[in-house]
């Protein structure tokens, strides 16, 4: 019995310690994934039903611009990945410029999305006239809202970085922000494929 107790205690010590905040953000992303799963399944109920999709008389969605915008967002994810890589080598200057580039690309994505929205509203894609328009604004809007939240977190991390809060040894805040950013970046191609095609 005593030896079993000892073995159990030893196992507990050897377990790699999970950073609580990282576990928290991962669980939060699980909730987010389920949220978008709910929205996307609702969308698919209509998309896969025999009704005409898109309904007649709807403006054409800007596939080309949005495809470029998708690349912009994916690029921002890659730049963020590079940024945290150089942070672990303590190349602070390069890290700061890469992180700023990430934030810039995120804001560029949002601005382009907003610009396209204004055009679509002008061309008569309305949320209230049919479910097609409703889902476009609901899905794209909800994703945009999450990107906005991610950009705010990015700017916060950027400010903290300028104050010298992070280094190769201390980078939890960067990791948390990156994890969340990867989520909003990874979600977009799925939505793009579903909504625009």
């Amino acid at each position, binding site marked *: 019995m005593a030896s079993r107790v000892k073995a159990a205690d030893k196992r507990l010590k050897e377990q790699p310690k999970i950073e*609580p905040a990282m576990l928290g953000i991962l669980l*939060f992303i699980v909730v987010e994934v389920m949220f978008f799963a*709910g929205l996307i399944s609702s969308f698919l*109920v209509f998309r896969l039903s025999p009704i005409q999709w898109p309904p007649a008389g709807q403006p054409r969605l800007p596939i080309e611009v949005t495809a470029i915008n998708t690349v912009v967002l994916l690029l921002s994810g890659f730049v963020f990945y590079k940024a945290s890589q150089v942070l672990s080598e303590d190349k602070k200057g390069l890290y700061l410029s890469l992180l700023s580039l990430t934030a810039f690309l995120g804001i560029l994505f949002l601005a382009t999305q907003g610009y396209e929205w204004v055009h679509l509203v002008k061309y008569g894609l309305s949320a209230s006239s049919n479910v097609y328009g409703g*889902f476009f604004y609901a899905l794209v809007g909800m994703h945009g809202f999450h990107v906005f939240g991610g950009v705010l977190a990015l700017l916060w991390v950027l400010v903290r970085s300028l104050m010298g809060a992070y280094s190769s040894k201390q980078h939890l805040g960067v990791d948390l922000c990156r994890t969340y950013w990867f989520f909003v970046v990874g979600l977009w191609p799925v939505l793009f494929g579903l909504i625009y095609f």
Partner: protein
Amino acid sequence: MSQEHHQSFLTKYIFSTDHKMVAKQFLLLALAMAVFGGFYAFLIRWELAYPNQPAPFFGVVTPDKYNVIITLHGTIMLFFVGMPLLNAFPSNFLVPLMIGARDMAFPRLNMASFWMTFVAAILLISSFFVPGGPVAGGWTGYAPLSASSEFTGVKAGAVLWILSLALIFIASSLGGINYLVTVVTMRAKGMTYSRVPLTVWFLLAAAMTFFLAVGPILAGAFMLLMDNVFGTGFFLPGKGGEPLLWQHLFWFFGHPEVYVLFFPTLGFVLDISAVFARKPVFGQKLIIGSTVVAIALSFIVWAHHMFQTGMNPTLVTPFAITTILISVPFAIIYICMFLTIHNGSISLEPPMLWALGFLATFLVGGLTGIFLGAAGADIYLHGTYFVIAHFHYTMFPSVFFGGYAAINYWYPKMFGRMLNKTAATIHFVLTFIFFNCTFWPLFIVGMGGMVRRIADPSFYPQFSPFVHLNIFATISAMCLIATQTIFLWNFFSSMKNGKKAELNPYQANTLEWLAQSPPPHGNWGPKLPVVTSGPYEYSEPNKTEDWHTQAPSYKGEASHG
């Protein structure tokens, strides 16, 4: 880290990050909201027994008011009484104490979770003061009633209801994430998962089930909000929408949600049974395994709430099968509960009475569920009071028998004083009798064919044979509500006048009984407890005492006076 620092009233009682204070805030919120929920229950029963006669303290319950009242009764009892009482309150109070931690992993998130819940409650209540009044489409918010004001005349009330629920759902999932992270990362030395008490296991099961299930209903709430505010038509057939979609989203969440309100009680009952029968819990690992199976199944049973709605009939059989199947893991857990008390030396202290009361009453709820899970029987029973009786035989034992069991059991640790035992026993006996007298007749009324969700049964001559049973149920319900004043008196007066509690009044093994009553900020003395045994090692052979604590080397506060 054990801090005896001075705190202002504001940081100690209002914006507190101490898990025990947050727990008490949740408990008080639940009790306050239960007063509203109970009053609405009284009005519902009054109208069913004495239609169109003015109810005391209210006046005539007209059909439109009746719709508002049943909606708010359901919303409040499930989300503002059940979840705070069974999830937030015990998780906050017990998780750190039972695993030997000083606080939650994210204390400020914890505080935020309470205040978001509080604001959600205010939003719900404020819907009384907007034009059109509060939401009146039923607590399930079925579209299109909830999606457009043309059906019930409620506009702002519906928006407030959606926002309120979305807020409490977000608050509860943040809370759930907090509990889970706390258990994973902050267990005391030696507290392996097999030594974690079942109460904590089940609180985690509830938290996990909740935050896995809540996403789709939040998506539904978002779409419902757009229907109400921006004029989209996701759930409105007139605009090409699909009202059944709301029901799918709602019940995908709604069915796991009833287990969220049921799992914690299983944990309390098992822990309490072990202590008051002086026996180890039977089949601890079997119970945990069954719970995992039940959680997995709970995500694929939701459409049994919708057999009558005109959903695709091909789906009926698979959902009926999963529904019947889910009773297997619960039956295993139930048998383990009986085997835990079997041959024990049982002492009928109030917490044990509530636990036994739960076993007796929930069994009726569980067994009648099988009738409703079988699609053929459900088509006849679903629209009737049989469903009301079944639902209350599951939820009332879970929320109230389980909640009262927890409050009675952990009261000495929370407030440092004992509840009055005579009053607690009388409270249990009367609640048990009046609960059964209230809801048992509803099974009969329901099988006779009396339909639910109608305000004035006297309008329908075919319900006239049920008048006497309805009056009997109503009088019992009024007695049931009146009985709860015994509890409220006991709860509040014992805080001041109760007998001083010892550290460990029940000679229980789990860690929370090592801490002071009530535990100070930081819970433990200078050194954290070190755990060397499991939580249920009662009545071991060849030992002089029939219990031993999980952390025998713990010195407590003694070392610094």
